[in-house]
């Protein structure tokens, strides 16, 4: 065989050559760099510009951050330490302000020996929202979730335990009316009674009842006033209560906006558009400057409560739009099927439509919450002690007057960590829900 070949071909390979690595330019890091960074002139320019930008930013930031001084009592001392270590006019962060005022940034002026209470409340809050946010947890935990607002409220503000208990009983009253009275008097009177009975109870019975119970069995912890609550705790309290309280209102508004009834529809639309058309800062000023004008003469409750009311109204308009999106995303068949089963409006909403619509809306609600949480920084402008306010207050003390970037960088980082993780969760949920719908 080989002989014949030798005449027709100059060279014949008679053995396989060793397998070789691909050329350097077509493999590994080099290929990756060429394809991803330098594939065209535009890309080369972009890459170089990005590298320059990153270098410029880091070369200023990193030395400043890493040289940071962690232990000092005042800015003057910080500067002295810096002069000693690196010489004057070298940029070095003074992180000591964070280490010294860390508690204040987190809790405001909450009594230091009671820090365990907000911490415990926060843990309880996490446990309470877990069954809402993650499926697959035992359904019994939902019972705890319903109970937790009262426990958390009690932990943060303290005082007699009977106050929250008396208020919680109002919901039991409402539930009892639905359960036992509605079959007797019919659906619509039943609904009205369910709404009216707890309100009457709260207005007339709850306060004396709490007082009575407190007299019989005094149980309570040190009360802490709203004015002592500040820092990230304040941001969380306003953000969370704003969202939680605005959910029912937001759902009602969304249903109202979908309603065929002319008046209900127009009222809902007007409310939503008015709230959304005016900046939150104007609403906050309304809460702080004007709300007292609209309430009966002599009414005066604390600023935090007024802000929470305003934030709740504000958030409810946004939640309404989110829920409306959820309602619109449901196939029409669901509404028709509910009707075909003979369910009336409220039952079809309660059993068929809302559970599905709300589930789709959770990412939107989480996003609304992130927005609201960031917006809580605006309460600084009306004199509440959010982290930015405390940054200003700290800078107003003679010790720390002149500190600038450290506080803002720290606050910004905290917000970033919190909002970013919430945002990731919302993305994760969106992906999961999308898959479920296929």
């Amino acid at each position, binding site marked *: 065989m080989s002989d014949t070949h030798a005449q027709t071909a100059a060279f014949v390979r008679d053995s396989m050559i060793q397998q070789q690595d691909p050329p350097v330019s077509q493999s590994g890091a080099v290929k990756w760099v060429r394809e991803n960074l330098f594939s065209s002139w535009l890309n080369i320019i972009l890459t170089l510009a990005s590298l320059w930008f990153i270098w410029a930013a880091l070369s200023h930031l990193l030395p400043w951050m890493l040289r940071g001084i962690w232990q000092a009592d005042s800015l003057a001392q910080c500067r002295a330490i810096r002069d000693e270590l690196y010489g004057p006019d070298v940029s070095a962060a003074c992180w000591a302000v964070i280490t010294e005022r860390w508690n204040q940034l987190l809790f405001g002026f909450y009594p230091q020996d009671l820090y365990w209470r907000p911490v415990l409340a926060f843990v309880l809050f996490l446990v309470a929202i877990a069954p809402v946010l993650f499926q697959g947890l035992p359904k019994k935990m939902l019972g705890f979730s319903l109970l937790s607002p009262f426990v958390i409220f009690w932990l943060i503000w303290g005082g007699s335990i009977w106050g929250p208990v008396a208020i919680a009983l109002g919901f039991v009253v409402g539930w009892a009316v639905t359960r036992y009275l509605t079959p007797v008097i019919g659906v619509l009177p039943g609904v009205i009674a369910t709404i009216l009975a707890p309100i009457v109870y709260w207005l007339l019975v709850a306060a004396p009842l709490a007082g009575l119970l407190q007299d019989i069995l005094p149980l309570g912890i040190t009360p802490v006033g709203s004015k002592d609550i500040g820092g990230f705790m304040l941001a969380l309290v306003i953000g969370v209560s704003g969202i939680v309280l605005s959910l029912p209102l937001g759902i009602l508004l969304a249903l109202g906006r979908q309603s065929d009834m002319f008046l209900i529809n127009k009222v809902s639309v007007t409310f939503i558009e008015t709230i959304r058309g005016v900046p939150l800062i104007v609403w906050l000023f309304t809460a702080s400057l004007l709300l007292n004008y609209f309430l009966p003469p002599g009414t005066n409750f604390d600023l935090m409560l007024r802000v929470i009311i305003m934030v709740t109204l504000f958030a409810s308009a946004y939640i309404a739009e989110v829920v409306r999106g959820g309602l619109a995303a449901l196939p029409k068949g669901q509404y028709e099927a509910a009707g075909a089963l003979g369910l009336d409006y409220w039952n079809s909403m309660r059993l068929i439509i809302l559970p599905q619509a709300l589930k789709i809306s959770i990412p939107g609600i989480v996003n609304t919450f992130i927005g609201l949480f960031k917006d809580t920084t605006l309460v600084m402008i009306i004199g509440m002690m959010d982290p930015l306010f405390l940054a200003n207050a700290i800078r107003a003390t003679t010790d720390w007057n002149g500190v600038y970037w450290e506080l803002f960088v720290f606050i910004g980082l905290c*917000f970033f960590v919190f909002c970013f993780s919430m945002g990731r969760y919302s993305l994760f949920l969106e992906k999961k829900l999308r898959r479920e719908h296929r």
Partner: protein
Amino acid sequence: MATLTDPPEHGFRLGQLIYDTRYRSLTIQVVAMILLALMMSWLVSNTIQNLAALGKDINFGFLWQPSGYDINQRLISYDSQATHGRAAVVGILNTLLVALLGCILATILGVIAGVLRLSSNWIVSRLMAVYVEGFRNVPLLLWIILIFALLTESTPAPNAFRGDEPTSSMFLDAVAVTNRGVYIPALHFASPLSQNGAVTWGVILLVLALSIFAITRIKRWATATQEATGVRPATWHYTLGLLIVPVGALLVTMGAYLDLPALQGFNFAGGTHLRNSLIALWLALSLYTGAFIAEIVRGGILAISKGQSEAAFALGLRPSTTMNLVILPQALRVIIPPLISQYLNLTKNSSLAIAVGYMDARSTLGGITINQTGRELEGMLLLGLFYLVLSLIISAAMNIFNASVKLKER
């Protein structure tokens, strides 16, 4: 409730108002209306009582009283002897200015960042991701403060331009970047024809608009010619001429000249002064909103099926052309509705101007005026109305635009 009405004769039972679907919605609406009216009257009567107790009244007369304070950035003439009403108008114009500038820059930034985030260039897409997440997850107020401080700290004071060996110098002797803002040349008119600045600018804009109209006509003619003959006539020289000659001639007749900023006394004098407060607010609003717009743009592009870009590549289009001619026009339909709400957000967020001392409507009407006159109810009402009307106008305008680019199904 409804039970208070007299029961009609012929077999109409009261229960029907509740149980008969023909009447039920009416019943509910009437009840709702009564409740609403009751609540409104309760609020109003409370307000009247409270105002009476404080010895105040509702009176908008303060708008015609002299304000007594100065405003640094004013688009119309104003001094401390002008009225509170005029101060409010100055503030409103400032709000509109920063909102308009912000919307434009935010859109540019957002589109660039959104497209680049999908770029194959690893480092660029990562950088854009950092930008988007960084701005989205930190409160805007903090960004405004930080950017303002950054501008103040990183740019030289006007002092640095002074002396025999200044540490900073002007760019081309025409632009000065200082920590009080950027001074750029201003266009002034020497001719007696242009006494009134507003009229002059109006005439210039009118001429410009006419030129642009003529250019579109030429383009249309070129397209028609191309369709008829297959050859597109060269039009660029017409376009250029139309754009430059009429406006240029007008400027010459008006005696236009450039007023360069120059160091004089404490500050630069002459030219146009873009204050740091405006720049900081503008940048912060644009960067913040741009991050949201980038996500919207990215979502819009991802929503276009891959077949579209593959088809475009199969036609031999370059990536940039594919993006401009195939992907973006389609993505626009997905992008525009959320974009509208971002514009609205930006406009509303401009009310944070107080953090950098930018004198917008919130700072003048809702700030100093309320503070000096004690008319918080009236001031807040006017301020709220202004923002509401502005929001409604923006959403109406954008909805019309949205309707025009919507997929036309035939």
